């Protein structure tokens, strides 16, 4: 690929409607991965963790061809606030003796994850196992033309900027969209994305991307599992009349989100109940007050990680991340769901 230093425009009946240049053009038209050679989105603000990035700007080992395990997601899979070896994907790889790559970045949307995965497959071949921890459905990957749209809820992807540093592709989180009835009746250009985008569009784009990925893996012989940390997405999947009971989602893994209770924002520890009864008992005893209940599981990890066991050092106000404890449970859930030959490290490599 030549460096994207020139411009391409789309002719139309009304003239040149759009100009694509630089890395913005590359990100839209190329079939290569978006790389983050200077990915300092989060770790500048997180004093405790050391985030070693590979040469493509991703956390974990250098990308290599036909790796055993590829996992992908957003900041929860990137491992914000926890050491690299404690990320749920790293734990799976360590327990099963598998090589792995981690294709994750803070703020990622499902469309970003899927776009990147297809580009990864193109460059590095297919992994044997793919596991994704998806964010909520209302995130999307959106090119922003500043003449039309603006947004305040964004992760600017600097590695996708055009030559004028005017346009780029954003991962944006629209989960806090106003109710339809509360949105302004009139909007002025450039429009706030939050005022004019319908959630239906976002839900459709996210689900369809998952469907494309499912079929790719099915046809390519990749074992594909996925779950979500999003309680709303999780509820939507697992409720009585939810998607799981109506449609085929073979790769979906329940992550037992109902068994966890986060404390207050920013520095809360995750509290885990091993049973529904323990959860109800705790709730009845402590109500809305402080809960000191702690699970006795994974005490070995508690000794290693200290405070990181129950809480991550969080740098995003109002959006806390999980400690090592919950990562350990995610890893367990995914390992349980993996086909039998992967659970025996001796068989896995064969």
């Amino acid at each position: 690929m030549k460096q994207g230093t020139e411009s391409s425009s789309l002719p139309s009946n009304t003239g040149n409607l759009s100009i694509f240049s630089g890395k913005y053009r590359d990100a839209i038209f190329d079939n290569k991965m978006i790389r983050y050679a200077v990915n300092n989105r989060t770790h500048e603000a997180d004093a405790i963790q050391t985030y070693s990035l590979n040469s493509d700007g991703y956390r974990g080992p250098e990308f290599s061809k036909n790796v055993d395990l590829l996992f992908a997601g957003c900041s929860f899979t990137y491992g914000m606030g926890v050491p690299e070896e404690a990320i749920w994907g790293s734990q799976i790889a360590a327990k099963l003796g598998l090589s792995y790559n981690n294709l994750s970045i803070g703020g990622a949307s499902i469309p970003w994850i899927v776009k990147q995965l297809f580009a990864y497959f193109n460059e590095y071949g297919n992994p044997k196992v793919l596991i994704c921890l998806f964010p909520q459905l209302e995130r999307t990957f959106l090119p922003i033309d500043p003449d039309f749209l603006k947004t305040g809820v964004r992760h600017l992807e600097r590695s996708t900027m055009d030559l004028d540093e005017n346009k780029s592709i954003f991962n944006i989180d629209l989960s806090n969209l106003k109710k339809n009835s509360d949105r302004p009746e009139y909007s002025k250009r450039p429009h706030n994305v939050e005022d004019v985008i319908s959630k239906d569009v976002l839900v459709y784009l996210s689900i369809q991307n998952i469907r494309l990925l499912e079929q790719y893996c099915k046809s390519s012989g990749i074992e594909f599992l996925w779950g979500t940390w999003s309680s709303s997405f999780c509820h939507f999947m697992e409720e009585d009349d939810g998607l799981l009971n109506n449609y085929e989602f073979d790769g979906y893994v329940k992550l037992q989100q109902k068994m966890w209770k986060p404390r207050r924002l920013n520095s809360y520890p995750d509290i885990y109940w091993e049973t529904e009864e323990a959860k109800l008992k705790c709730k009845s005893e402590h109500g809305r007050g402080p809960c000191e209940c702690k699970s006795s599981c994974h005490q070995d990890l508690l000794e290693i990680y200290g405070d990181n066991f129950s809480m991550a050092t969080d740098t995003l106000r109002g959006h806390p991340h999980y400690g090592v404890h919950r990562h350990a449970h995610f890893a367990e859930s995914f390992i349980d769901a993996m086909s039998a030959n992967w659970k025996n490290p001796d068989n896995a490599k064969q």
Partner: protein
Amino acid sequence: MQNNSLYPIHPGESLSFSGNYRDAIFGDTLLKHPNHDRFSYLDTAQDYNLNSSGYRGPEFSKNIDLLVSGCSFTYGIGIPENGTWGSILSRSMGVSYNNLSLSGASIGWMTRQLFAYFKEYGNPKMLICLFPNPTKLFFASDPDILVSDDGYVETSTQDADGRKSLYSTTLHEVRQPKDRPEYSRRPHNLKDIISLDFVIQTCMQNIRMLEQYCRATGIKFLWGTWSKDFSHMIENQGLIDLYDFSSYVPMDDELWSRRDGPLSIDLFYKNQSSRESCLSNHIGKKCDCHESCHADLAAGYGESFYRGTDVFENHPHFGVHRHIHMAESFMSRMQSN
């Protein structure tokens, strides 16, 4: 289906997904059009025989040799089924084929449908797509927030109330930013809100995913476009020199010209010099030039050889002659590979 799935978005408020709308968004099965009469009632000259899934051509069957996909041009508006480029190609190669095309289809619709087809019927040996302009968007409407005034409503994707559905909608006439209204009123018109960048990015990503799927599964994949805007962008503005477009097949658009109007005749020149000669001799007058290639087939197809009977004003479709040349272009690339 009467069930309703509610996606929690605010305390006490949920997004509602019901009926066929829910199935279309969350299911992984092919959108079928058993009562598909979108335009056949407008065009009585042709016999549009549909298979049991609502698509033109043979019944869908497992592990077919050749799958073709596209919009109305691949569906074959105005011409007999045996004159569509997909049908011609399958006969020329002596292979079985299916045609997964629908009038008004967008690249987003095609990609969704192709992956669903792969799941239901397995992978074809060859996949050839004739894409429309990359300025069509396949999207979900919400009549309270965002609507389209000229989309193709996929009636087979409507919710239980008939309020929501999926659309393929064209934004190719979208205005320059400065020409768009400064203010927009809810429900917003897609054309006033959505940037062309978003639509093109979505379309390109879909094509890239299809390419990778075919590469990984051993499907021979080729694609072209009837859209002059799209082919110009790829061929003349240099994208093909910058990025990997090895599956792309030029359709030699520059060798064709059309008369104006809904009953336009496609004129073909075998080379650029004959085209320029004709244009200089007939400029401002009717041009009756027509190359003699494939004249042996003209008699068999009658008027539809030169033109498609068009039911859409200002959006004429090609006759069989051009379909033959498109089939030849794909065939030539297939043989060279």
